[in-house]
């Protein structure tokens, strides 16, 4: 898409955005276009710069360098209260001295909007809490406060709605329910949502487009399916779900495929899914894409032989295996419990196979552990 077209449409354009605190660079030369009307997620571990990016968009932090534009308007140095942008804060930040009604009416009153009553009641109905209008925030549960924070922002019909870990303080069940609701509300009101989260499942459930951030930069951007199926870096491969990354070398070409040598065994990889820059490569396969088979069973596609089952965990819908390969690496295999094949037991010799089109290739000089140590549920604050 061209910059001119996206400006005219009212997209949010971040251009070479940088934020430094002394020696520490929180956001490093970040450029990004968020299409109008989309549900966009900034996903990354604690300290990756996602919240700083959000705060710069809101106007709560001044960028060290770079510009922020909304459509054709440069808002880099506009005061927060002059931006057509509203935020749902991490811990809601409702005004404790005002009723729910006055909390929601706050933005409307500041702008001198008429028909405050009607707008507030509509917003309360949207979040399905019209009966709480006269309560104080402390009388509400966490989930209710979350919805009121959303109503307080949405009622202003901003050009852009920012959500800073909005579901972080809710329990798991409520979080899942709110994810679905938020997605529905976004479709209903048609406002651009920019959602910051460290929870990959949350980002994948709700967002049209996800930008995975790491150390102040965007690692990869795309639809949830793109990111999951074809990660371009080890960080993305490990942060979004789990991946098996096997070190290898590119030993040749076969039409649209590259032939990869993995410790003496040959497999193939689609060229358009290979992100290697030289002959050194990591072949990546998601655990659920693997098929595990006994030695006598015929297998097709990519096959790795010589595995030995090290560990079996039966978890209902699937069985998870740890398979030790001849080169000493343990591979994760998730098998659906739907094919009637007797489960494998510890110590059994097995082969592993998969559809060649599922393979993705990463640069061989990457850190295969990048993005794995991060526990997504560990630290909601940044």
């Amino acid at each position, binding site marked *: 898409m061209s910059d001119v077209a996206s400006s005219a449409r009212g997209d949010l354009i971040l251009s070479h955005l940088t934020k430094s605190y002394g020696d520490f660079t929180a956001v490093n030369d970040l450029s990004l276009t968020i299409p109008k009307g989309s549900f966009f997620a900034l996903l990354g571990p604690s300290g990756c710069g996602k919240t700083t990016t959000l705060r710069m968009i809101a106007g709560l932090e001044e960028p060290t360098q770079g510009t922020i534009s909304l459509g054709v308007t440069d808002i880099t140095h506009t005061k927060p209260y002059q931006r057509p942008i509203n*935020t749902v804060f991490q811990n809601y930040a409702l005004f404790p001295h005002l009723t729910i009604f006055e909390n929601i009416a706050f933005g409307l009153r500041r702008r001198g909007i008429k028909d405050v009553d009607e707008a507030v009641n509509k917003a309360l109905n949207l979040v399905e809490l019209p009966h709480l209008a006269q309560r104080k925030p402390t009388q509400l549960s966490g989930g209710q406060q979350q919805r009121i924070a959303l109503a307080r922002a949405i009622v202003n019909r901003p050009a852009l709605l920012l959500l800073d870990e909005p579901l972080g303080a809710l329990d798991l069940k409520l979080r899942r329910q709110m994810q679905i609701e938020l997605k529905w509300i976004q479709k209903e009101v048609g406002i651009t949502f920019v959602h910051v989260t460290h929870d990959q499942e949350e980002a994948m459930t709700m967002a049209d487009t996800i930008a995975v951030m790491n150390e102040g930069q965007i690692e990869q951007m795309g639809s949830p399916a793109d990111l999951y199926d074809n990660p371009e870096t080890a960080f993305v491969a490990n942060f979004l779900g789990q991946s098996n990354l096997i070190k290898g070398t590119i030993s040749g070409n076969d039409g649209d495929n590259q032939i990869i040598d993995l410790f003496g065994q040959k497999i193939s990889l689609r060229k358009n899914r290979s992100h290697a820059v030289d002959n050194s490569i990591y072949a990546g396969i998601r655990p659920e894409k693997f098929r595990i088979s006994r030695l006598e069973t015929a297998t097709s596609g990519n096959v790795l032989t010589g595995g030995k089952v090290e560990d079996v965990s039966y978890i209902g819908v699937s069985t998870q295996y740890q398979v030790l390969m001849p080169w000493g690496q343990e591979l994760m295999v998730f098998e659906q419990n739907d094919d009637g094949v007797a489960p494998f037991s510890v110590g059994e010799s097995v082969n592993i196979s998969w559809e060649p089109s599922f393979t993705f290739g990463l640069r061989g000089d990457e850190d295969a552990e990048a993005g794995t140590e991060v526990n997504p549920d560990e630290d909601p604050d940044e």
Partner: protein
Amino acid sequence: MTQSQGFKIRTPYLLLLPGMAFLLTFFIFPLINLAQTSTQTPVGGGDTGQYEQSLRLQNYVDAFIENREQFGRSFLYATIATILALLIAYPLAYAIAFKGGKLKNLMLVLVIAPFFTSFLLRTVAWKQILGEEGFVVPPLRTLGIISESTTLTSSAFAVVAGMTYNFLPFMTLPLYASIDRIDPRTLEASGDLYANGFTTFRKVTLPLSMPGVVAGTLLTFIPAAGDYVNAAILGSPTTKMLGNVIESRYFRIVDYPTAAALSFTLMISILILVTFYVRKAGTEELV
């Protein structure tokens, strides 16, 4: 009911006992005594300071009419000092709470540091500060802000300045406590919801700090209205407050009934004003 349950129920009362006993002995009894004194009349043909118990309520009317000027002055000075202290303490408390950072505790210690010297000594020091040779008067004269003949000591200005200074910590500390409790994210949220700095202060910061404003103004106004030290040291005969009258009636003129009646009138007036003020401020609505 077991023995331990009985003990649990009695515990709060046991804890209240020492305080109640103390208040009864040193507050309630003297107060009753004071009430009795306030309606006494001089013994016919007796010496100065000899009074007998009667129920002369006219004492109150006489005392008030005779000293209404000082009465009004007490409340006027106390009000001005309270407003000045609030105007000085609010920015101070705000700065300590939100911008204090690592220096927060040091700044709080500095706020109460004056307490390490005697109240009297500090008030006497103000005499020097506002005196002819001090560092306030000469520059003001040079700049022509005050005329050559104007002095600052022995004036209403000096009394109010002294009171403002002396009660400033009582204003600052409760203000700090309530401003410090404000979640800074609510201020960010206000900015995010189209309120500029001034509106945010008016609609969010100030309402949320009201408990501190009420506590601070009460802790300043009540002692200031009854104060006599500042007027005695920094004032002149024309700036006498009710406290000074009570003091001289008791200790110099030995007119106990009038002194007692004035004390009661002052106390009741403050009580009524405070009740009205707290109702008006509506702090019970606040979290």
